[in-house]
Every structure is written in C-alpha cells, then in structure tokens.
C-alpha cells in the first residue's frame, strides 16, 4: 500500500533488506537485460581483465536496490526517476554474495507530493552505489 504523504517526513526510513546474489542470478539478469558481458559470468575472463572475480552488472544492483523504493511506494509507476553512480563492483564468488540496501527520505515537496529517497547500498562492507536516489510521487 502506498504511504500517505502526511505520514512521511524527512528521515522516514524505508524497510531495509539483504539480497543474496549468486552466479545464476547474473545469468538470469544477462538473459533478461541483453547484457552478456563475460565479466558477469566467466571467472577466468573477469580475472584476465584485472577484476578479483565475477562481478554483478551495475544495472542489476541498481535494479534490486530500487525495489526497496518500489515496494515502499506500493506501485512501480510512482517511481518517477532514479539515478546512481557505480562506485565499487559487487564481487560474486562461486559461493555467492550479499548486498544490503537501506533507504530514507531526504526531502519532500508537499505541493507536488514528490518525495526524494536516498539509498545506501553496500556489499562486503564496500559502498557499491553512490548518490543513489529516487523520486517517488505519493500524490
């Protein structure tokens, strides 16, 4: 259910979550997105270009992180914009990895009913997304 604007304030926290990622998830995302870059699937190839191991698609990370906002908003159509920087890769060893996503309201405009959310996204202690924000229309 969509939160009511009057129940939201700067600092309101969105329900945080931990997401598990393994190589199969990356294969599924590659198939769905059309991004078949082997650095997301092939350990040997990833190492040959100087990466520690297979890494997740930055866009996969952005996609799962934004779900924290979509679920809070109650409707994906209310997410009117989102953006992020890719600051560190999510390294996905054969045994998988976890990413933690937390979010809170940074600002809101009662006239337009638009709320800006900032996300904190980490994996293995490293910040993987930077300036990750989304604007939600609660009107």
């Amino acid at each position: 259910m969509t939160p009511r604007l009057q129940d939201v304030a700067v600092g309101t926290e969105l329900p945080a979550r931990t997401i598990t990622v393994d190589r199969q998830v990356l294969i599924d995302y590659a198939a769905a997105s059309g991004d078949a870059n082997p650095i997301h699937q092939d350990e040997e190839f990833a190492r040959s270009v100087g990466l520690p191991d297979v890494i997740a698609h930055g866009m996969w990370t952005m996609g799962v992180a934004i779900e924290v906002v979509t679920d809070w908003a109650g409707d994906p159509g209310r997410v009117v914009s989102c953006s992020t920087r890719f600051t560190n890769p999510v390294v996905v060893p054969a045994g998988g990895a976890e990413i933690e996503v937390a979010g809170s309201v940074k600002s809101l405009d009662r006239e337009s009913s638009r709320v800006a959310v900032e996300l904190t996204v980490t994996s293995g202690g490293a910040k993987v997304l930077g300036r990750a924000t989304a604007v939600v229309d609660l009107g």
Partner: protein
Amino acid sequence: MVVNTGFVGRTYPPTQPHAVQREHIAGFARAVGAASPVHHDVRAARKAGYRDVVAPPTYAVVVAQRCDAQLVLDPEAGIDFSRVVHGQQGFEHHRPIVAGDQVVGVLHVDAVREAGGHAMVTTRSELSTVTGDRLCTATSTIVVRGERG
C-alpha cells in the same frame, strides 16, 4: 584522448523498435527481485489502472544500452569496448513502460571529458513509443579507462 571529442552534440538515428512483451517484463522483474503482481499478472496491472503489465523502473536500460552501443561500437568514436566501465545511470520516467509498447530510442552524446587519463562520456537516450509517446529519458556516463588505467 581515448574518445573522439568531436562526438559531443552528435545524435544517432532511432534504434529499431523494441516490442515490449509480457514474458520479457516478467523475466526482467524476476531477475531483479521485483515481486509486485503488476509486473507479472495482467489482471493485477489493469486493476491498478495500467493497460498491461508494467516494467520495473530500470527496465528502460534494455533499450538505453542499445542506444549507447551505437556510440561504443562506432569505429569513428575510437572507444575500446574492453576498457569501458559504467559510471553513472539515471532514468526520468515520463510514463511507465507497459507490455505492448513499441519502444525506440534516440541517442544524444551530451559530454566528453577527460580526467586522470580516463575519458568520461555522458549520453542521453530519449525513449518513446513508435507513435511518439515519450516514455523515459535515460542518462548514462561511461568511463573509458586510459591505456595505463
């Protein structure tokens, strides 16, 4: 410079139409853990006021990356794809993408700048339906690592 700076301001022709299918939206949604029934169930989507199942907010990248590929694979741009890293991505939605949309994207090269031996290329892909409904403005910055980077 690892990128041709003369490309700033360049616009590419529209991409081939991408027909948004229900199964594709559902597959993309599953891959990013988007469980809302409006991605998966046309009745739930219609009940929520949509014409058909709705794409997750980052689905627009499917077309936006085809736009970016025009530049990255353009031999005149001089970009070595193996040195490309995704630096930034943004989406501004004008209306949600739904199954049945035929989506085209027009790529604009907005900026090319150099920092620390790397080149940063900022592009903007304007996504619309073939009939001219504006869907999404997708911005992307790719970093082309310098020879020693």
